[in-house]
């Protein structure tokens, strides 16, 4: 029904006349008859705006919104200040293309430059790109970036988010690159002795990826890992939850060569999985190997400060098959979202989010343990932890679901990965613990 075409039939006719054709469809006369659609498209008729919205609202109603969410595993519900959505809704940001014309895109270029700076500050790195698709694909780009003619093998800890590991494996398989998984110990952290042994035998080790906090919420020992990796002459990459970096030692402080992660916690809604944003930052010496857009500062001919897309000699539109990556579109509006979020919260606000999340998670752990579950996280954790129980995980998930609670994620028959953030309240913790307790005692949920 709607088609967003401004021109009337009369105007279209005038245009046809100027071109020298009778009707618009004549412009397709050059198409071979065989490949032209002979009938109408097999689609429903166009609908009014009111009907479209109503249809989509019906779909939205078929999704269950959990008022209480104790699930993370790579996507987190945090509070999003109203200013964040207000800024990113502006048409000048939302409807612009990649800023190829700097003179009319200073607003976008500057916002990306500010994003890069904030990411560098959080990660302790020297240079950040303008964003990648999500944390998992950013990690894949990061490990691939470390490979060269002499160093080819990618090492990834088993404690890295399995979805991130799978995407790394997919990128590596496509390129014919070898990926070795470094085993995890019983305490759910990387077996660093095993890492040491593996790297000692491999002259072709390119890099090692460690996640901090790891998939199970555990704090790894990056300082030890860093020594092992660098002694072997490989690159050390850390994957991080950006919120945690407000209170935990940064990859830069550990001596990592690059930092990556899922930027969704920085003001982006859960959104059924996307769009999210992958951040990737590195030390100076890796700057020219980074994939994706990078904005740099310069001056115009009058000496005014100006921003441009820079180091484009790395990129596909210049280098084609020799480019460092094929990345063209990124997640610019999500980078803007992350910037506004970080600016709004500030370093203190982000530390507050981190500390509250950690507090809530520990209170949740205590309550679940009191309810009869076993904490099998294995040691210090951030805002996620693992439980084991005699009641099957799926059963607990079901019981919580009925009460409007999204429980921890089942990660095995009897294990669950729980998460809490600053949005969770004592009342919610009490409620979920109550449900679990009932199940553990064999009562009906």
């Amino acid at each position, binding site marked *: 029904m709607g*088609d*967003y075409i*401004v*021109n009337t039939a009369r105007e279209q006719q005038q245009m046809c006349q100027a071109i020298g054709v009778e009707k618009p*469809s004549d*412009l397709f006369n050059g198409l071979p008859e065989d490949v*032209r659609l002979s009938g109408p*498209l097999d*689609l*429903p*008729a*166009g609908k009014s705006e009111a009907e479209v919205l109503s249809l989509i609202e*019906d*779909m939205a109603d*078929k*999704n269950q*919104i*959990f008022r209480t969410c104790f*699930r993370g*595993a790579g996507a987190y519900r945090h*509070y999003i200040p109203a200013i964040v959505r207000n800024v990113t809704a502006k048409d*000048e940001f939302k*409807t*612009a293309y*990649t800023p190829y*014309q*700097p*003179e009319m895109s200073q*607003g*976008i270029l500057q916002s990306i*430059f*500010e994003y890069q700076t904030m990411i560098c500050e959080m990660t302790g790195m020297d240079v*950040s790109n303008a964003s990648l*698709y999500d944390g998992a694909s950013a990690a894949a780009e990061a490990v691939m970036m470390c490979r060269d003619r002499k160093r080819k093998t990618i090492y990834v800890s088993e404690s890295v988010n399995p979805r991130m590991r*799978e995407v790394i494996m997919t*990128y590596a398989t*496509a*390129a*014919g690159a070898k990926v070795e998984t470094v085993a995890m110990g019983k305490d759910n952290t990387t077996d660093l002795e095993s890492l040491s042994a593996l790297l000692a035998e491999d002259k072709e080790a390119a890099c090692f990826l460690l996640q901090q906090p790891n998939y199970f919420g555990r704090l790894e020992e990056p300082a030890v890992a860093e020594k092992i990796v660098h002694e072997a002459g490989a690159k050390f990459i850390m994957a991080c939850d950006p919120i945690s970096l407000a209170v935990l030692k940064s990859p830069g402080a550990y001596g990592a060569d690059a930092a990556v992660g899922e930027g969704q916690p920085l003001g982006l*809604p859960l959104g*059924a999985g996307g769009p999210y944003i992958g951040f990737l930052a590195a030390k100076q010496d890796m700057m020219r190997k980074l994939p994706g857009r990078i*904005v740099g*500062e310069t001056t*115009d001919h009058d000496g*005014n400060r*100006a921003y*441009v897309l820079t180091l484009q000699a790395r990129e*596909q*539109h210049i280098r084609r*098959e020799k480019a460092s990556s094929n990345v063209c*579109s*990124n997640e610019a509006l999500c980078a803007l979202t992350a910037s506004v979020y970080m*600016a*709004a919260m*500030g*370093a203190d*606000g982000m530390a507050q989010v981190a*500390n*509250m999340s950690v*507090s809530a998670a520990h209170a949740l752990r205590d309550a679940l343990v009191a309810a009869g579950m076993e904490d099998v996280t294995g040691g210090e954790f951030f805002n996620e932890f693992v439980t084991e129980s005699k009641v099957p995980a799926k059963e607990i998930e079901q019981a919580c679901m009925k009460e409007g609670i999204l429980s921890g994620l089942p990660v095995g028959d009897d294990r669950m990965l729980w998460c809490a953030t600053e949005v969770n309240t004592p009342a919610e913790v009490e409620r979920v613990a109550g449900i679990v307790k009932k199940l553990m005692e064999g009562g009906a949920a």
Partner: protein
Amino acid sequence: MKLIFERGGEGHRSDFLPENAFPAVSFEERFQREDKPALPEVNEVEIAQHYTQLAKQAFGVSNGMYPLGSCTMKYNPKVNEEAASLKGFTEIHPLQPAKTMQGVAEMYATLEKYLLAITGMDHVTFQPAAGAHGEFTGLQLIQAYHRDRGDEKRTKIIVPDSAHGTNPASATMCGYQIVNVPSNEKGGVDIALLKEAVGEDTAGLMLTNPNTLGIFDENIEEITAIVHEAGGLCYYDGANLNAVMGIARPGDMGFDVMHMNLHKTFSTPHGGGGPGSGPVACKDFLKEFLPGRQVVCEEKGYSFARPEKTIGSVTAFDGNALVVLRALAYVLTLGKEGIPQAAENAVLNANYMRVGLQDVMDVPYEGPCMHEFVASAKTIKKETGVAALDIAKGMIDCDMHPPTIYFPLIVDEAMMFEPTETESKASIDRAVEAIRGICKKAYEDPEELHGAPHHAPIGRPDEVTAARHPVVRFEVKEEE
């Protein structure tokens, strides 16, 4: 313009959260951050002002004409935004049990069905987050197909010289060698050279049709047949699908796998560079290799299943769901009549703009064109010294976005115009008049154009220095 780091001041902040209701927990010292990240210290008021000022120095589709070739900068409908802000989608965790995300599954299943009708393919994955990501995914399907058959000798991907830069870059990421095939004098694939290029080592061909010159390759069926005969598969780069949607289908042209750019053809906003969504569609025989999980429709509802021989995953979850939702709103709105009408008007607008300019600029490939056309400033440059870049910068002073310039690479001083179907005749008339004025100015006062733009927030930036001495972050602690 001040940077956000230069605004505000010590202690400026806003509070968004209540007090911590739980006991504090601290970590062992070795894990703790010692240096406080130097994020901006600003109040919400200062943030609102900062970004409102930045927005004044940005230009989107809603600001005016944006004929950026190959980017399909069409209007971004507002109902799409409203749909994408529904809490029933924004608050859904990607790892919720399937029965609590039936609406998400229905969204994917519904748009899949519609996209299959438009493309003539059999299956879709929504996991890729952008066009180039879709290329990378589609090529992996081709790779998995050959590997699965034990056909390891297929190491080459054929790419025409007019292709988008992402095509060869994506093929390289899959470990392929690139065979470039030059275009013929009509701008299409040179059939004789293609026949020479294919062989037992051909994994596949990547093609945009209409191509980046805005030309629909009349030999398309012969081209895909040649590749198939050699044992290769055919990949359709859907960047230019806007020209032919509802008119002709890649699936009927002989393509086996393709991507679409929902942020081009299906009206979702570009966001200053992203997020996009690059769903990949394929024929039935490639289904078992698709990444991620596929929505399965059963009597009791939707569920998700992983294809048997999946290549893995290219993003963590199911895709850029909120972008997919916008595209669904768009297809629902246009429907079976609106989709081909959009294509027709895109082609009509491009041709109208072409005839308005063809006597003041070179148009190396004769029309009619499809949704875009490539003009060249070659003659103007030879006669006046004014280059495509100068004309583009002159357009900025006329308050419109310039076209894509210096691409495709096979045309000197290329200027690639794609007005899209949502521009009015009046705005194209204005643009044509302005560009004609600039071309005239080239002969009268070339210096003025060399110095353009004159009315933008900045003059031409020094890009050479930016690349030689990169300053890629603000040094927050500079003053200390």
